[in-house]
């Protein structure tokens, strides 16, 4: 029952429309155009990827969507609502959560507390409630703790509940970040290189987790990755950036066979058949 | 032998510790002198110094501690009126007498506390005296009034300004400054407004630096101040060459003028290895008033240690002669009844008596 309060979307069927519509988004740093008029529409309850060479502007793209950078031009709409101009916390409240390329957990908090912070924006209790310990306060605390419990279970980190987050092994920290982001009850979650630093075995687990995020929680997933095996087998749609510009997009096999992508990104090892092997079996 | 203690409250550490230490040392000297007499009377006399760090809260806490020590029969202090006011209030319920060697703010005695006395002139008598000097002797038509933004300096300068205005003198500028080093903007303003005299309510180590920079800019306007300038350090700071045309009012006779003052200065230097300054002399005088009062009270009490109340009453009523600052007696609120204010003039760094004025507190 509580599960549904954490993730109401889980029950709802996919609407088929776009949850996120990014149009002609541009970011300039001084003379450098890091993201150049990129348009991308993310279908509701899909798993999509953004890939591209180093420095292509992927992280910057995420930073604009989440309000950390103000775009130079362009628009971002979540379920039809304009996000440009909002502060990061407002974006989160609107329904986008994210993880970071360089892990940013709260270093003096336990795993549980980290997730509870993620839940913060959904709690109803106020300053006064906290001081007076009203019923609403207790309900909120309960809700936060429940959310933490559920999310820890969900990503399989229950045993780390009371451990200081930054003492966790690297891979588990990444999962904790995902759990923290999910606790905000997002409509859309942005994952920036979730598999970095994981070995192939761990990456497999992660893949399963990401699928469950979409299937069980009904959260749309958009991720950045360099691990092509993960990207090609997981994503339903791929956008490729190079030097800030979208050079290709499409279904995994289309992108994989696009000569521009091979040239700019995949390189000589990108034997067309290689990455797709598992895709078929999924 | 019964132990009798007197306490001092003054800043012994921090930026005003030089003045506070002067007071403590002055009192110490008096205690040393009186120890024998007390011994004869059957008492063991001791001094307990307290550091108020020039902070009112610390001073109050010290006062309450003093109040709790039954052997302490009197307090000499403080340096800052801001500390004296709450401290004397804290001492009042225990009838512990306080004789101030330095506090000039009107409010110190205006509250009518039975235990608060002072041997220095009030701002509203020292101020007008300074103003009179400016108009009568210096014949100034236009004056610039400065203060150091402390209770003392601002209070004094305020009284001066009031008196000057009453006498029709134009005030070409009136302001306070906490700055201790750089006076260039004030000097420029003075240069611009060309006053005939400058009054500065404050302490010598700030005013000295100011005068030095004033003279450095080629302005020779007379500078007048209050007892905060009474220090042998003043001409040193200004520099011998520039220490001209500087005047200050003080209750202590110039140390050279009185033979007693000379011996005081010598033994101060000998005991503490530092020259005596105005506040040392005031502290010494205040302590003598206090100690003499205690002795008198003991005598009246049949040779037994007197109670605090007895000391308090005796001191308020007594008359004390032969002090460095002349004769001291207090009016009903503890102000010094009549005092001679000496106006000292610095010429080429040498202090000399210019004139003396007699001042009275508003009440008698």
């Amino acid at each position, binding site marked *: 029952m509580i599960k549904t309060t954490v993730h109401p979307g889980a029950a709802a069927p996919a609407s088929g429309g776009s949850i996120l519509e990014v149009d002609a988004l541009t970011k300039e740093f001084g003379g450098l155009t890091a993201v150049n008029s990129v348009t991308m529409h993310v279908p509701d309850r899909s798993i999509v990827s953004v890939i591209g060479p180093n420095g292509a502007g992927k992280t910057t793209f995420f930073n604009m969507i989440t309000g950390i950078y103000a775009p130079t031009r362009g628009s971002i709409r979540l379920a039809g609502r304009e996000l440009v*101009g909002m502060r990061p916390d407002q974006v989160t409240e609107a329904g986008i959560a994210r993880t970071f390329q360089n892990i940013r*957990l709260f270093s003096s908090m336990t795993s549980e507390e980290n997730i509870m912070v993620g839940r913060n924006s959904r709690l109803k209790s106020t300053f006064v409630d906290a001081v007076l310990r009203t019923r609403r306060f207790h309900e909120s605390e309960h809700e936060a703790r429940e959310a933490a419990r559920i999310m820890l279970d969900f990503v399989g980190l229950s045993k780390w509940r009371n451990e200081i987050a930054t003492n966790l092994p690297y891979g588990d920290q990444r999962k904790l970040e995902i759990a923290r982001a999910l606790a905000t009850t997002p409509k859309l979650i942005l994952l920036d290189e979730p598999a970095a630093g994981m070995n192939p075995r761990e990456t497999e687990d992660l893949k399963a987790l990401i699928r469950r995020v979409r299937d069980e929680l009904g959260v749309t997933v958009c991720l950045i990755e360099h691990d092509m095996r993960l990207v090609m087998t997981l994503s339903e749609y791929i956008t490729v950036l190079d030097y800030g510009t979208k050079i290709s997009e499409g279904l995994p096999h289309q992108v994989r066979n696009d000569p521009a992508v091979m040239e700019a990104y995949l390189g000589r090892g990108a034997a067309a058949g290689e990455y797709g092997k598992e895709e078929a079996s999924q | 032998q019964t132990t009798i203690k007197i306490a001092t409250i003054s800043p012994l550490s921090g930026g005003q510790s030089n003045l506070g230490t002067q007071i403590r040392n002055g009192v110490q000297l008096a205690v040393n002198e009186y120890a024998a007499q007390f011994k004869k009377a059957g008492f063991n006399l001791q001094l307990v110094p307290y550091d108020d760090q020039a902070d009112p809260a610390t001073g109050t806490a010290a006062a309450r501690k003093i*109040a709790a020590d039954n052997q302490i029969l009197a307090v000499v202090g403080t340096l800052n009126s801001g500390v004296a006011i709450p401290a004397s209030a804290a001492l009042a319920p225990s009838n512990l007498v306080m004789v101030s060697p330095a506090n000039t703010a009107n409010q110190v005695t205006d509250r009518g506390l039975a235990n608060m006395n002072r041997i220095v002139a009030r701002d509203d008598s020292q101020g007008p005296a300074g103003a009179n000097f400016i108009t009568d002797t210096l014949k100034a038509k236009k004056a610039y009034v400065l203060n150091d933004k402390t209770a003392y300096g601002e209070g004094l300068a305020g009284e001066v300004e009031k008196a000057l205005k009453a006498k029709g003198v134009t005030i070409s500028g009136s302001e306070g400054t906490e700055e201790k080093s750089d006076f260039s903007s004030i000097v420029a303003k003075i240069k611009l407004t060309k006053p005939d005299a400058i009054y500065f309510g404050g302490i010598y180590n700030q005013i000295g630096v100011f005068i030095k920079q004033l003279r450095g800019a080629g302005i020779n306007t007379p500078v007048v101040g209050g007892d905060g300038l009474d220090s042998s350090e003043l001409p040193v700071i200004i520099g011998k060459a520039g220490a001209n045309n500087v005047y200050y009012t003080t209750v202590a006779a110039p140390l050279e003028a009185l033979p007693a003052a000379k011996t005081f200065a010598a033994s101060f230097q000998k005991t503490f290895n530092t020259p005596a300054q105005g506040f040392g002399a005031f502290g010494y005088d205040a302590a003598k008033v206090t100690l003499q009062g205690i002795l008198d009270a003991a005598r009246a009490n049949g040779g037994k240690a007197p109670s605090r109340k007895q000391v308090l009453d005796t001191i308020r009523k007594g008359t004390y002669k032969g002090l460095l600052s002349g004769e001291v007696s207090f009016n009903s609120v503890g102000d010094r009844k009549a005092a001679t204010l000496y106006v000292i003039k610095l010429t080429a760094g040498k202090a000399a008596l210019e004139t003396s004025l007699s001042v009275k507190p508003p009440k008698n």
Partner: protein
Amino acid sequence: MTVASPAKPAVRRPLVKPDRTIWLVLFFVVTSILLLVSHETDIMKNLGPLGDVLRNKVVEALVVSLFLANVLFAYLWKAANWAKLLVGIGSLLFVLPLAGQADTSLLDLSIQIMIFAALALGLNIVVGLAGLLDLGYVAFFAVGAYTWSIFASPRFSEVLKYYGANAGSTGSGTLAIGLVLTAVAAGSMLYIRGLHTRTAPTRLSNLSFLLAGFGLFAGITLVGRSVLVLFSGSAEAVANGINPGFFWLFLALSVMTAALVGVLIGLPVLKLKGDYLAIITLGLGEVIRVLANNLGLYTAGSQGITPIGSASVPWFNSLAGALGFRPEQYYLLFLYVLVLIVIAVILLVNVRLDNSRIGRAWIAIRDDEIAAQAMGVPLMQTKLIAFATGASFAGVMGMIFAAKQTFISPESFNLLQSITVLSMVVLGGMGSFSGVILGAAVVTLLNLRILPGLGEASANVSWIPQEVNPANFNRFIFGSILVAMMLLRPEGLLPNARRTRELHHEDDQEDKSGEGNASGLKAGGDVYSAGLATIKEDDKTGGSR
């Protein structure tokens, strides 16, 4: 191919504290007796050499400190709850006031300790929890103090007289205009805020908000002025300040004014990071002091305000009288009890906030502003709440301080005071409530008891030369103790559990290779501003298009 052998599992000894009920009670009884006896002159006289020892000022200071340590031990030691309660209540509500009866300075000392404890608790929220270094904290203390002092002293009638004499064209018409302006401005501000929660702010909406802000300010000024003018007739009636009955109202008002000033100061500066914030708060603290020194009409400037009234509670006074207190002690005793209650409330608020959504948000922004924001924590709002909460504690204590001192002047609110409070927080253990209270107690005891005690005790010891009398070295000794304590216990006297974990795992970026471990290998280590100025001006967070 070789397979290495597994290592032996590490053995860890469990930490169980022995029960110390007996020791606690014993300690309580002994220190209470010592405290009471040492303040009973008659008994002391008959004690002979023991009396001399107890009379020694250093010993006396130690006795007081040891007695106060009761409360600490009751908190720290493992003991039966009844014993803890007995010792806590017994020492604070019975023994201490009783000793205070004989020695008023004990009451003064205890009030001062608790005032500082409250300040430290307030600053702890700002610095310890939210990680915002505030070096001008004493400003809020001043605001609280002046809020009460201006009204509860002859100042108020001076102000009224002034406005009576300088009424200008102000009258009831002005009041009406002012009220309308205030209402309209406040209304539009609320409206725009509401709008902003729904749609992204635009330049126009921001500008109108600012404009409405000015309108509000003007409106309030007008209202204030006309109220003063209209009431100027009653100047005589309040010649000695307003009715002491207003004390209770002002207790709330001082909280609010300080909080408001906290918000006003916080709004422009809380965007700044780390030490930029530190120095700017330091400056604003000075600004408040200089204003107090210059706005002579309201604050009496450097001359200070006196006498300042306190609440008058007749039944309390008769109770105190019945208990044998002297009339001049009534108000101190009253303030003592009041301050006990207030600090209990403050402590409660602290603990409750810490274990709540807002407390977690504070720690989150301290750890990582960007991540916190990305998790939906509104930075500005969260920081403002920290600032205002901390300020309000200072405000209420400022008022009590003014009532206790009966005199206040700007000297009491200088930078050194802010630094002292900060040192209490760090010394006690940042982020730890019991720690900062202990820090406040230790520093206050040092400053008001132990150091003066050293000075007194050595004043008449012949072999200690005048020049090195400890009374002249308060700063030196205090400084040395600060340094020594920090070197010995960098995490504070009673560290916060979270802090300790952090100190030992994450916080430092130091290469501790010499010590056989590498606690600090993670970069970061920015303790009071974990946030980073990540974003360049031209890509301001959430800026408008």
